């Protein structure tokens, strides 16, 4: 007999904040943070790539730490503070220094990996893993870019790390 037939609860209620705004969601327990961000909160900046934690394009900050939102159930996010790419620019619309640096250094081509690269870069800089180009490459390795913008991404991260203190 499956769960629904036994009358067990397969829906779950979750309170969390996204980019500083409070949300309450009631979802099927199977729903990932990624799917709910896109389909529930309608924040489609977070992209779905491999859906198995390999590509990094779904990277968001959970309580300030970067994670793959495809590998997290929304149900696990009770009380969590999530930051997505929509939350990087300030309320007046001024871009985050990391976003500015990506534009300046031409650190993308098709743009599909960019939201994840940006969140990962913000975290990488905040973690202090920007001592050298090698260190940046190692600590940005969880974000794949099939256009091959890696040299420009590395330059952007190193550049902004010098100018911006999180």
């Amino acid at each position, binding site marked *: 007999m499956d*769960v629904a037939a036994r009358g067990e609860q397969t829906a779950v209620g979750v309170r969390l904040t996204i980019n500083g705004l409070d949300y309450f969601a009631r979802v099927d327990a199977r729903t990932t943070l990624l799917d709910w961000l896109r389909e529930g909160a309608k924040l489609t900046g977070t992209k779905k790539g491999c859906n198995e*934690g390999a590509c*990094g394009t779904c990277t968001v900050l959970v309580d300030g730490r970067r994670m*793959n939102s495809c*590998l*997290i*159930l929304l149900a*696990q996010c009770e009380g969590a503070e999530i930051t997505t790419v929509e939350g990087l620019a300030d309320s007046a619309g001024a871009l985050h220094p990391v976003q500015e640096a990506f534009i300046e250094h031409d650190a993308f081509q098709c743009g599909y990996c960019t939201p994840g690269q940006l969140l*990962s870069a913000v975290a990488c800089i905040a973690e202090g893993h920007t001592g050298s180009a090698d260190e940046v490459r190692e600590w940005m390795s969880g974000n794949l870019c099939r256009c091959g913008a890696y040299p420009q991404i590395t330059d952007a991260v190193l550049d902004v790390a010098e100018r911006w203190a999180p």
Partner: protein
Amino acid sequence: MKEFAYSRARTAAEASALAGRSGTCLIAGGTELLNWMRLGIVAPDQVVDIGAIPGQAGIRLEGDTLLIGALADLNRIAGHPLVEAHAPLLGQACRSAASPQVRNRATLGGNILQRTRCPYFRAEEPLPWGCNKRRPGSGCSAHRGRNGEHAILGWTGSCVATHPSDPLVALTCLGAEVELVSPNALRRAPVGTLHVTQREARHAGEDSARYENTLRDDEMIVGFRIPAQSVTGTSYIKVRERRSYAYALVSAAAALRVEGGAVRSLGLVLGSVAQRPWRLRGAEAALIGQPISKDTVHAAVEEDLREAKSLPDNEHKIRLARNAAVRAVLTAATS
């Protein structure tokens, strides 16, 4: 992914009691479980979240023992000053695993319970080929097919999978114990004996493909105890197809104490060569009292690896394992 009921456990005892019920899976970070559920490797009715159980993510020193909670994530472990001071080998292994994002989420308890990366095993239902782990009696497609990354030790014709964890190799090398809670008991076991090879499973009268570890259904990992050792050097060598964010083809951990130019103690363990970390006991014993030189280490490791048996595609892994083990010892000697 099949429908499931979700609940949150408040204590380890409550979680382990629920874990013993059939159709129940525990979730901590979830970086493995979500992919298992997507592929149909598991299809639980009930998922119990242990991620918010208080007091299970700590890292502290108690006398000469470093205690790490099962819920500590890999990046926190790698960056923790107590780990850096008392078990840098574990920090190094944690840092070499997965990606920064996954390491922020993946717990140490979950990491050592990850399952093989065999591509025949990690296929989506309906399974297009045989896999004795997924469907008993359906055959081992890797044994007959592509097996370049598979086991060179402990395998049987019914399964040739390896265990892919990096931290598990370091924990084994450091002589760590795992703490297991069940509804009525707390027990400790050497972490290196938690998993079994296919051959050991068969000798124990179990299914050689499906019996992977000695964890009971109602047991849950709550922590690790690592003896703070007096070693003079440690090293974790991970050999992989790209330099970052890849599983090991072979890995090797060494923890060495050299005094007066001779080896006083040595832990030497290989990873990704069998379904459990593979301690090179022969080489460890042979090198005691010896000076460290490339020739002596090479000879000892080579002798120990004579029991390795390659599959058609993975003869290179025996040489990789030997070279990684030698390099780990030599690096530990100069670190």
